[in-house]
């Protein structure tokens, strides 16, 4: 119900301006603008602060693997982000490859297989996993997991060593990319599971019953009705997990025995991620060091942005079929 003034000129009816609506509308608008301002602010900070080191850099920043940035004012710094970017993407991809199938399995079990009580208990436990601080994951990883995994790594390299990923000789400490990837996988498992479970539970009953009425078994019902409907949600959850894995610092810094090389051998020590590198190097950074680390941060920012945009593209691609 809106009251309109009865002037003779025809115009669109105008609602009464209510003070509550105005205040709420402007607050919401302000929040929306704030998030854009923060994003722009961070990007501007990264670009401006990294400029100093990037302009003094004598090596190609994107293709060099060495990191010689802590120079005195009269020396020429030479550093590049290639090894770090490779390590970052490798660790995150590894985590995603390990975590996504397990998360989808847990989510399907919770949504469609587990008895109701077990399902809510399991859901609660998975949420609890997300509450564990990453430094604790790091401690667990280095204090326990790496030792336990070493025999498994030995087995992998004995039998699958012909695949470069698993080539030996394996690191005896277990502080490898594989260990970092596994710990990261555990860390991103809750978010992927929670989001997948939510979308699986939202599959309309009509679609599930349609599949069952055609004579689908439970697995076939899941394949026909649940997975296609839930796919964008699973991808969204995986991308959130990937975002967390890309930026995860503490656990990786504790577990990985770093080396600035580009190595595909997951079971040997080596590689390093951008986030862990920044955390470990920052306290000792001198000269152009800080600015160079900020440049590395800019690259991480860009990678995360690209990953998120790619995810949105994938989700939107088959929109016509998912209404």
């Amino acid at each position, binding site marked *: 119900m809106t009251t309109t003034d009865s002037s003779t000129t025809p115009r669109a009816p105008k609602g009464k301006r209510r003070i509550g609506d105005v205040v709420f509308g402007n607050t919401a608008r302000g929040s929306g603008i704030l998030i854009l301002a923060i994003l722009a602010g961070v990007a501007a900070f990264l670009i401006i602060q990294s400029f100093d080191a990037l302009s003094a850099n004598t090596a190609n920043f994107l293709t060099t693997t060495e990191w010689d940035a802590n120079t005195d004012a009269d020396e020429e710094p030479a550093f590049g982000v290639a090894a770090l970017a490779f390590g970052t993407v490798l660790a995150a991809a590894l985590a995603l490859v390990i975590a996504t199938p397990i998360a989808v399995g847990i989510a399907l079990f919770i949504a469609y297989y587990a008895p109701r009580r077990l399902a809510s208990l399991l859901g609660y436990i998975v949420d609890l996993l997300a509450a564990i601080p990453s430094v604790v994951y790091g401690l667990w990883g280095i204090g326990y997991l790496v030792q336990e995994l070493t025999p498994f790594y030995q087995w992998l390299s004995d039998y699958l060593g012909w695949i470069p990923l698993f080539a030996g000789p394996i690191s005896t400490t277990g502080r490898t990319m594989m260990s970092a990837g596994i710990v990261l996988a555990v860390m991103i498992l809750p978010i992927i599971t929670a989001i997948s479970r939510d979308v699986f539970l939202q599959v309309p009953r009509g679609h599930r019953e*349609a599949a069952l009425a055609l*004579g689908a078994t439970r697995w076939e019902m899941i394949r026909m009705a649940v997975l296609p409907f839930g796919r964008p949600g699973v991808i969204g959850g995986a991308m959130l997990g990937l975002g967390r894995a890309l930026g995860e610092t503490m656990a990786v810094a504790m577990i990985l025995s770093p080396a600035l090389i580009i190595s595909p051998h997951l079971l040997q020590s080596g590689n390093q991620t951008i986030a862990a590198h920044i955390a470990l190097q920052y306290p000792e950074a001198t000269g152009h060091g800080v600015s160079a680390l900020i440049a590395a941060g800019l690259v991480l920012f860009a990678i995360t942005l690209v990953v998120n945009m790619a995810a949105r593209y994938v989700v939107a691609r088959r929109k016509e079929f998912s209404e």
Partner: protein
Amino acid sequence: MAKRIDVSGLNVYYGDFLAVEDVSMTIEPRAVTAFIGSSGCGKSTFLRTLNRMHEVAPNARVDGKVMLDDLDIYAPEVDPVAVRREIGMVFQQPNPFPTMSIYDNVIAGSKLNNQRMSKSNADDIVERALRDANLWDEVKDRLAKPGSGLSGGQQQRLCIARAVAVQPEVLLMDEPCSALDPISTLAIEDLIASLKENYTICIVTHNMQQAARVSDQTAFFNLAGTGQPGRLIEMGETNKIFTKPDKKETENYITGRFG
């Protein structure tokens, strides 16, 4: 194709709650049997026991006997999945798979039975099912488009095509027209009339004119009171049920002097 269904002494439960009590009836092949009755009287619940969809709900169970010709569909060794492949179902809300094309929707059931089907074989099945559902001419040029892009009436006919594509013995329809406009309803009713040449059809409907138009037999369900189980009050030739029913309750319902 088309088999007789014989129900005897069927009780339907949700947990401890008895929803439908002691139903016995014979559903004739190559005929349309309509289930009528007020909301909540158990007619849809009863329909869903005929292809074992009832037990999909948690704690749902039945006792009694349902025979599909010689097969006791509730016998312990019978797989409900196999029963549902013989007895197809169409739901109240049109529910094509939203992520599938029209073509894939129709072929979905056949793919379950036979994973490796030749392309030409699949094409034949799709065309035949869509022709059976009076939908072929409307969609033949856009088979690769999503089924969710069709109108409500077309979607419901797509669902019927999907159900008949696997050539079931029986087709169950749970208020198939209640979400549709009158024109689409007419199209579905014409379709039911042509499908009964090949299938045993059961239809739940709230629309008594529809029951009178499409069915050969009519079964009237009613509740004794709130919280009481639904019962089959009377079943017989549709003509007879709508002109001179045996029971007073039936007469009250069909003449609208109910409750």
